[in-house]
């Protein structure tokens, strides 16, 4: 640490240059952080998808319905622990851009399949007993300022009611929470109430989520389920929840690839900027470095000093950028609540820190080698 002041002095030798280089590194890491959060948003659920859950959809496509009688048949299948069916409701709350997912479900089964949803005891009791009850995730409730006890009117786009009406009203009797990263945008309501009120397709549901006893058996069990319903009017396609969520995310496009391309472009540019700064700084200090060597500083020490300078710049810029990105993602997502997840994960923070260090090393290596190889006589003569 005794070389700290020396490194600091070299850094602030040209203040403006150092400041602008650190700022451009800061912007690069801010961008890295925001893009990482975006990637998390688009692939939300892939990481957290339970590996003991399978999703059973109609073989032709997810919009085709399956009979709710499959519940019993799935439950009777060896290896299946629990079964839940969900149906896409697709209603509009106030205006179409207020999109969030609504799903009629069997209340008790929902809580058994998704133990990650936490509901206070009194709300849980109401949800299990009251037929017109609905529960909303924390994110959606916050987005619209809902409180427990509110009446939520939703206009159906698909499911007209038996009386021809399109307006569905629900009692919000619970708001569920979950750990960071778990989707809390969904809105659930009672399937029995839904099934007897809808005007058509009674007994038909969208898809099934099942819990299995042994995750290692997932592939074989998926095959057994599909074979069981083969050649019936509603054939199935079963996949792990992870594969299902991943395929769905892929439908938007290969977000991961796009983000990798952008990040690579940005880092390449910033690398140039930082390396250029370091090279200039070493060039300018040729005579000073020669004096240091004359005083007895070894070649290795000079190399280390230049590398430390480069790394200090990269790491301070990187840390500031990542910190700023973290603050920014805390402030809420840019779509105003559409993303099921919007945060900078610890893994991405660690990745960013590692990248900052790597940037400092790579940008510093050529100038540092130059400084190391400097011959005192030549350098002093040149100055």
């Amino acid at each position, binding site marked *: 640490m005794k070389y700290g002041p020396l490194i600091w002095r070299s850094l602030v030798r040209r203040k403006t240059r150092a400041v602008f280089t650190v700022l*451009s590194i800061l*912007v690069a890491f801010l961008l890295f952080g925001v893009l990482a959060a975006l990637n998390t948003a688009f692939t939300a659920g892939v990481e957290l998808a339970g590996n003991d859950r399978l999703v059973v959809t109609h073989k032709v496509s997810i919009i085709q319905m399956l009979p709710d009688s499959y519940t019993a048949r799935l439950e009777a299948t060896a290896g299946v622990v629990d079964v839940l069916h969900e149906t896409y409701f697709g209603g509009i709350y106030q205006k179409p851009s207020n999109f969030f997912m609504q799903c009629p479900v069997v209340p008790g089964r929902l809580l058994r399949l998704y133990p990650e949803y936490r509901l206070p005891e009194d709300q849980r009791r109401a949800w299990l007993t009251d037929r017109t009850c609905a529960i909303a995730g924390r994110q959606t409730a916050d987005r619209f300022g809902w409180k427990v006890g509110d009446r939520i009117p939703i206009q159906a786009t698909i499911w007209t009611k038996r009386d021809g009406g399109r307006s569905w009203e629900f009692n919000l009797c619970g708001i569920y929470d979950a750990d960071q990263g778990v989707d809390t945008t969904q809105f659930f309501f009672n399937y029995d109430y839904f099934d007897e009120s809808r005007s058509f397709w009674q007994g038909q549901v969208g898809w099934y989520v099942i819990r299995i006893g042994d995750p290692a058996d997932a592939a074989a069990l998926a095959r057994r389920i599909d074979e069981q319903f083969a050649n019936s009017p509603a054939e199935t396609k079963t996949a792990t929840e992870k594969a299902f969520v991943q*395929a769905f995310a892929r439908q938007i496009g290969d977000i991961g690839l796009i983000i990798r391309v952008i990040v690579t472009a940005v880092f390449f540019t910033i690398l140039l900027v930082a390396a*250029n700064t370091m090279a200039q700084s070493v060039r300018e200090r040729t005579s000073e470095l020669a004096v240091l060597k004359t005083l007895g500083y070894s070649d290795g020490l000079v190399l280390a000093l230049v590398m430390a300078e480069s790394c200090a710049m990269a790491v301070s810029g990187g840390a500031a950028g990542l910190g700023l990105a973290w603050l920014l993602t805390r402030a809420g997502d*840019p779509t105003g609540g559409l993303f099921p997840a919007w945060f900078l994960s610890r893994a991405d923070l660690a990745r960013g820190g590692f990248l900052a260090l790597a940037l400092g090393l790579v940008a510093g290596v050529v100038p540092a080698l130059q400084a190391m190889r400097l011959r005192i006589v030549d350098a002093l003569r040149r100055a």
Partner: protein
Amino acid sequence: MRGPAGWLVQVAVVTLLNVRTVRQRLGSSLVAVVGIAGVVTIFVAVLSTAEGFRRTVQSAGSRDTAVVLRAGSDSEMVSVLSREDVSVIGDAAGLRRGAGGAVVSGELFVIVDLLNRATNTTANVSLRGVGPNAFAVRPEVAIIQGRAFEAGRNELIVGRGAAAQFAGTAVGRTLRFGRSDWTVVGIFDAGGTLADSELWCDAAVLQPLYQRGTTVQAVYAKLESPEAFAGFKDALTSDPRLNVKVMRETDYYAEQSQMITALISTIGVGIALLMGIGAVFGAVNTMYTAVAARTREIAVLRALGFGGGPVAVSVLVESLLLAGSGGLAGGAIAYATFHGFRTSTMNWQSFSQVTFAFAVTPGIVARGVAYALAMGLAGGLLPAVRAARLPIVSALREL
């Protein structure tokens, strides 16, 4: 050398001197150019994605076509119309009439899973069941390979975009949806419109397979003229036998593409802005270096009687030239890499894949270059001021 002419000559001389000596500062100048080129590449790529998507979805609409859905439906996906509805709609005033009566097409719209070649995962693809009038309603659709499907048979024709993006869609191949087999008999070109992403078949064959009875989901009706729309809409919405929503096809598609276009533009432009700020910092460094490297030259010029203004302007011009060439390079890279590149994404309103091509238009490239120049201006400003303020005596003594 007095007056504005003299001033301009000074600017020109100093700028020329700067430009001629760029080679001596090649390293740092290249850094600025490459940085700005990178930003502009991403900027243009993002805008061309949004533009390509918008074009595909919106060019599908024609002003003299009306779309009729069940009231309350926001897309044909969730709409239902009965056979009676379709015949009432076909009798309305203001419709174009051909040999087979009004040019009206009742259509089914469902989704099937196909394998996306690019990601190797299943994708939602639209399967449209159409009537005989579908081609008359969309004159831009032409069979480019094979033939049209025959009425009453399990035959499909595949849009050009879908054929490129999804596996198993070549002519002669058989696709299995559930328990029914379909033969691909032709590929059609819909002129880069939305239909290019779709599969088409006979509506009458699709109805029983999807338990739809005799219902359809949307009616596409060709009007006598674009002006006939208001009358047609009034007639349908005031008809007590119907409970429908009538839209111009152009408006319908504009609504369908709005969300995605807005999302791509907002996120993309946000990213490009952030990157731009980073590049400006890089450019500032470059120009400071340029000024620092020429401290003595500038001082000599000033001593010879050149004004501070021309020196500052020349620094700005150099910065703009570097940024402009970076911008042009970025635009060229984006054009070469992305223009015409086909990809597909999810259109949430129809819950199915839309294939589209990136469209790098001259307008977008111009915006990219303008953005580059703005970065050059921002990056050159402070160094220019410093160059103008350089104290002559101490600058001459330096070095």
